[in-house]
């Protein structure tokens, strides 16, 4: 189901926009008339993605920012660049932020700041980017933050004693934890923004998608497993339709549901809704990103 709503005059920011679900979503949003600011790590891939989008949607309004989300200082630079583009283009603010970029790593590797790579890219980067872009999101009448999560967050808990799994790293568990973190961030962000807020956060489960995510930064066995498994998945375009629905359909802003799959709201895992865990994850993430609730006016809800 694809929302018929056009997005002319809307500004959308999407990370991981150069391939897979991100590229498919960018194409569809551009076709609906949105001004899309995509973020990608590689300059050549950004250029290629821009060409692909313009081929699919001649006259599309799209621009790319190059940013390596594995480094939090570069996430801050990305936010500054987005601010600059929004101002230069005379946009009112940001209508939709889609935190789509994600990575998988077979081995425990760390980012320049010393964080485990999956945790940094899949959770800390969107956590920080959302905070940095919140003032722009608050400027539009109805703003949406969409976290591209996964059904793999079910049956997953955090290892609070070693949240980045330094001592007992498991590639799949590390990935599942970050997808759980995406859902929990959406829930807690909505709580902190309050019911009257014009900004709403959502998590979307795109389902099993045939993308290259499991082929980058992984070793032989994981590559083989992902190739076999993803071959049964839906296409990135099919997955993107669920994200575009959340980005454009007016009725979703009136619903209280946070977690969505196939354009329908559903319940996230029970664990992801536990108040104590939500608070703990938020505090840990703030500490790691070096930010405070006070600065962003997002105090905890008692």
């Amino acid at each position, binding site marked *: 189901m694809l929302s018929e709503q056009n997005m002319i005059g809307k500004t959308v920011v999407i990370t991981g926009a150069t391939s897979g679900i991100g590229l498919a979503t960018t194409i569809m949003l551009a076709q609906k008339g949105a001004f899309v600011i995509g973020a990608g790590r590689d300059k050549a891939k950004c250029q290629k993605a821009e060409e692909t989008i313009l081929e699919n949607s001649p006259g599309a309004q799209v621009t790319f920012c190059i940013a390596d989300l594995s480094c*939090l200082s570069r996430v801050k630079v990305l936010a500054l660049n987005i601010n600059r583009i929004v101002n230069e283009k005379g946009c009112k603010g940001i209508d939709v932020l889609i935190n789509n970029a994600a990575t998988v790593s077979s*081995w425990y*590797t760390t980012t*320049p*700041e010393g964080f485990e790579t999956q945790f940094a890219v899949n959770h800390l980067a969107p956590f920080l980017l959302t905070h940095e872009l919140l003032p722009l999101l608050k400027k539009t009448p109805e703003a949406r933050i969409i976290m591209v999560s996964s059904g793999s967050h079910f049956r997953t808990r955090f290892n609070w004693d070693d949240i980045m799994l*330094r*001592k007992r790293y498991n590639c799949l568990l590390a990935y599942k934890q970050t997808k759980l973190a995406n859902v929990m961030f959406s829930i807690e962000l909505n709580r902190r923004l309050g019911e009257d807020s014009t900004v709403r956060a959502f998590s979307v489960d795109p389902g099993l998608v045939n993308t290259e995510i499991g082929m980058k930064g992984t*070793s032989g066995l994981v590559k083989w497993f992902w190739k076999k498994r993803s071959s049964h998945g839906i296409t990135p375009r099919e997955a993107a339709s669920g994200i575009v629905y959340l980005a454009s359909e007016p009725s979703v802003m009136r619903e209280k549901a946070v977690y969505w799959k196939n354009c329908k709201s559903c319940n996230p895992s029970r664990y992801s809704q536990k108040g104590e865990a939500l608070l703990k994850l938020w505090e840990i993430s703030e500490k*790691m*990103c070096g930010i405070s609730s006070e600065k962003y006016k997002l105090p905890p809800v008692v």
Partner: protein
Amino acid sequence: MRSMICITGATGGLGRAFAVECACRGWDLFLTDISADALETLACGISSTYMVNVDFYPSDLTDVSSRERLFKHITEKGLIFHGLINIAGPDYEGPFAQRTPEQIRTILRLNIEANLEMTFEALKHREKGRSFRIINVSSLASFYPMLIKATYAAYKRFLLDFSLAIREELRRKGCTVTVLCPAGMPTNPPCIHAIDIQGFMGRITTKNVGYVAAKTIDYALKGRPVYIPGLVNKILGIISRFVPSTTAARLIYERWG
């Protein structure tokens, strides 16, 4: 001033893993590496996450004057240490005759000169009345004469023997020396690729750096001399004692040559 753990080569994959592990244990850190920006980024991430003090000073340890500036900085700031983790050490893979003179000089300066001087200086600035832990990063390659990695294996052997020798010298002075001898370390994409192309053998001899850093520090705190991560690697280490060096070199040539 609280005493710190000094880590050289801190911004590489293994260096970061050790820095994080030490910070998790609540130890303040003094980090050094060649890039000031990389040090600042790492220090920022660690200090905000683990609430420890992280000081750093950029230094090119292959350069004598740069090392002297580092030692002067340590003295002038009155830094004191309760541990030293020597990680800095390059690996230039390939036949010896194909190395450049600069690469050969770098290997000697960084792995031998810098390591010895750093150990000497850190001992001068150790915290009085507290155990002092030295961790040197050698390699499983130190147990064998390795073609393609001839200089690498040889200086890792130097580090192993040097460490075991000073361990005895310093034992009664409240100082322990532990040598880490890992096989493949999946610290960055080229290393992961190199492990990948070794196939099954690469997979079973490789351990995650986070695990290795934690276990190495556990070993150091217990005063153990050598830590070889992984059962297969331990067996390979034991076999080296019984296989003549010339035979080992020939066998390695059969596999890698």
